């Protein structure tokens, strides 16, 4: 009995002395399970008689159970299926025991439902398994967990595209590099890259923009229904917005559908002759290369070879020419009259080429303003230069007509009087020769009447070898109204006064010349009377 009492005392002293009184736990629980310490909690994990059952673990770890039930995640994988939880997640090994520990380098992440490829394989677990990437608040609140991540890229990665593109990142990107997006095929995009577009740097169209105060490259929402969405409309909308009517993707400078091109929409409207000109005549390089067109000479050669240049500047062709052609000119007489040579009289009706195209080429400068610069001096050597010094036609002619001559004939030895004044110059100065051709004759003309006139009297009145008509005739009237027969050697008296002239002065023909006989060999009666 004595020993028995001592035994009981010793037993309880030892029990009291043990800080883990009534503690049947084989060791401290890990920190995450620390709240389960205590004898009353044993059966929360341990099933009496059956060790620790998975169902006990999953009763608390519902998030794992949920995934296992859904056949998702590592715990639903073939590597874990059928295993007991405690075979990996043991406990009672002290507070600091890592209840979740595995060889991170050898862990086959594929079993977790997300194979680590490319850049992902280079990351550490904590790069991804962190609260920021977990959406479920319950899981997020855990000190550390491998749960709660989603395989969707954007749950970890920032949406660089700022919600402007699909959330299926792997349609374009792979696991190696975010940039470039090797899986992206522009052929699958609504905008096909053709021609030059295939070599254009992405940034040219997909510019760096800012959204939510963050820079990003615009891929979604890039307008492409019209070329001008990206390209500057150098035509300033003159040709409308459908660039493809003329341009192709091959090159901006390669023009297609030129037949449809309406040049009138350009700043240079094609009119008249320009309409028939081949494009290449003006657009010698590319059709799209800018051309000067403000002045005609921007395209046309100055045919006149700077003849109109003033102070180094040639006037535009359009001052004289129209687009109907270079033949013909809109240079008016009024304009001509502002020059040194006014067009007057007959010159007005004179075609330009008469003066300006004496040679093969047109000439507008220094062609002279003197008459004989253009006109032939037909009087040269015919008229004494003293009557038209320096061959100045205007001394006699004016610009109205050649025929009208205003020459003071009194300056010559032969003043024109009477009927002579009424005669044309030609009558005396351009007598016709035997062939009927006019022969100019100004000099060497005698002043005697018979120089010009025929002696109709057949030398009846010749005296001393000459016939002076003026003895009977006057310049004013050839007929002799005041002829006093009584002053002749045969005075008319008696019945002779009433006798008609032609009764005595009858026509006579000698050598085929008919003339009135005024002179008689005598005045005998029988000369006339029978």
């Amino acid at each position: 009995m004595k020993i028995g009492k001592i035994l009981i005392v010793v037993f309880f002293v030892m029990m009291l002395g043990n800080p883990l009184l009534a503690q049947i736990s084989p060791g401290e629980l890990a920190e995450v399970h620390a709240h389960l310490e205590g004898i009353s909690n044993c059966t929360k994990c341990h099933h009496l008689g059956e060790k620790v059952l998975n169902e006990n673990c999953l009763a608390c770890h519902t998030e794992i159970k949920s995934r296992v039930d859904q056949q998702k995640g590592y715990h639903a994988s073939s590597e874990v299926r059928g295993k007991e939880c405690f075979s990996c997640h043991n406990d009672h090994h002290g507070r600091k025991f890592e209840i979740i520990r595995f060889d991170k380098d050898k862990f086959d992440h594929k079993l977790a439902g997300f194979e680590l490829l490319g850049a992902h394989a280079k990351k550490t677990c904590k790069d991804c398994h962190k609260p920021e990437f977990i959406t479920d608040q319950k899981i997020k609140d855990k000190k550390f967990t491998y749960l709660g991540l989603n395989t969707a890229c954007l749950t970890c990665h920032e949406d660089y595209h700022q919600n402007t593109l699909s959330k299926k990142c792997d349609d374009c990107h792979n696991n190696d590099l975010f940039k470039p997006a090797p899986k992206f095929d522009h052929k699958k995009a609504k905008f096909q890259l053709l021609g030059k577009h295939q070599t254009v740097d992405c940034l040219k169209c997909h510019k760096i923009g800012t959204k939510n105060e963050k820079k990003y490259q615009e891929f979604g929402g890039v307008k492409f229904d019209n070329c001008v969405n990206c390209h500057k409309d150098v035509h300033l909308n003159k040709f409308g917005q459908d660039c493809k009517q003329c341009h192709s993707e091959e090159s901006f400078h390669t023009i297609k559908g030129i037949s449809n091109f309406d040049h009138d929409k350009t700043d240079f409207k094609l009119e008249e002759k320009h309409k028939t000109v081949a494009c290449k005549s003006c657009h010698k390089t590319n059709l799209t290369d800018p051309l000067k067109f403000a002045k005609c000479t921007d395209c046309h050669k100055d045919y006149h070879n700077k003849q109109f240049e003033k102070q180094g500047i040639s006037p535009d062709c359009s001052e004289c020419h129209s687009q109907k052609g270079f033949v013909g000119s809109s240079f008016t007489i009024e304009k001509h009259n502002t020059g040194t040579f006014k067009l007057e009289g007959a010159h007005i009706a004179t075609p330009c080429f008469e003066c300006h195209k004496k040679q093969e080429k047109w000439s507008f400068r220094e062609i002279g303003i003197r008459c004989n610069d253009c006109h032939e001096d037909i009087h040269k050597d015919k008229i004494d230069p003293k009557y038209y010094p320096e061959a100045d036609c205007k001394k006699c002619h004016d610009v109205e007509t050649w025929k009208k001559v205003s020459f003071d004939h009194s300056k010559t030895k032969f003043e024109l009087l009477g009927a002579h004044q009424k005669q044309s110059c030609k009558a005396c100065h351009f007598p016709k020769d035997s062939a009927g051709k006019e022969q100019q004759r100004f000099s060497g003309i005698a002043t005697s009447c018979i120089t010009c006139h025929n002696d109709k009297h057949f030398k009846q009145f010749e005296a001393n070898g000459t016939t002076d008509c003026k003895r009977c005739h006057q310049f004013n009237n050839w007929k002799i109204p005041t002829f006093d027969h009584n002053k002749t050697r045969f005075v008319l008296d008696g019945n002779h006064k009433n006798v008609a002239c032609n009764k005595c002065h009858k026509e006579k023909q000698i050598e085929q010349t008919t003339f009135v006989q005024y002179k008689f060999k005598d005045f005998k009666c029988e000369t006339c009377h029978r």
Partner: protein
Amino acid sequence: MTKSVHIIYITIMVLIVILSFSAIVYFGNSYYATSLEERFFHENHRILEPKGMWGHGLGIFGSLFMIVGVTSYMARKRYRFLSRLGLLKHWLEFHIFLCTLGPALILFHTAFKFGGLVAVSFWSMVAVFLSGIIGRFIYIQIPRTIEGRELSLNEVRDMKSDIGAIIKSSYNLDEESYNKIVESTTNASNRTGSLGEVKKVLKKNKLSKEQYNNVLKLVRNEISLNRRIDRLVIMQNMFKYWHVAHLPFALVMLIIMVIHIGVTVTFGFRWIF
């Protein structure tokens, strides 16, 4: 059991203990040296953990060895029908063997985790083990019969031979030498270095080597016996108190061990069964 058989018997038991201990240390050194938090991840954890194939086995066999060692020795001492089965001394040696091997195995079964209720059992075991060593020391100090029964003070005194008469009759020693030898044995408990003086005396008498050794042995036994007689009462008292410590700790150990086994079985750990 002849002396040589006894030596083999002892040697085998010692070897078993040493080899078992060494083998476990060799095999489990790496695991046991690993910190508690890291052990789970050790390659040998599944084998050497307390509930592992080996670890659990060590516990079961360690416990069985101790239970057998204790109960058999207690039964040998208490039950009359076993009193003639072998020498008590050999039973004690077997008890010591099993109760040394058992705690050694238990030590490794714990994997050096000494927490919880079962720690009480463990430390009780340690106490029993240490007290056993002390007890063994006390035990030797008490002269016993060849069966191991304790001798009373009178029986011990009767055991004493007359060393003076033996030496005087068998060996030719001078009177002075004889007196010195007898004196050294009678005062042995009070003096140190008396055996050295005996050796000097014997050398002076120029005894043969055999004679020299025989005399020396006689003197040693005489001195030992004299000392035992001197300490016998003290030792007998100490031994009474020792039992108070040794046995209760063993019982505490066993009770908690039973609880421990009950708990483990309850929680589903059944080793190979």
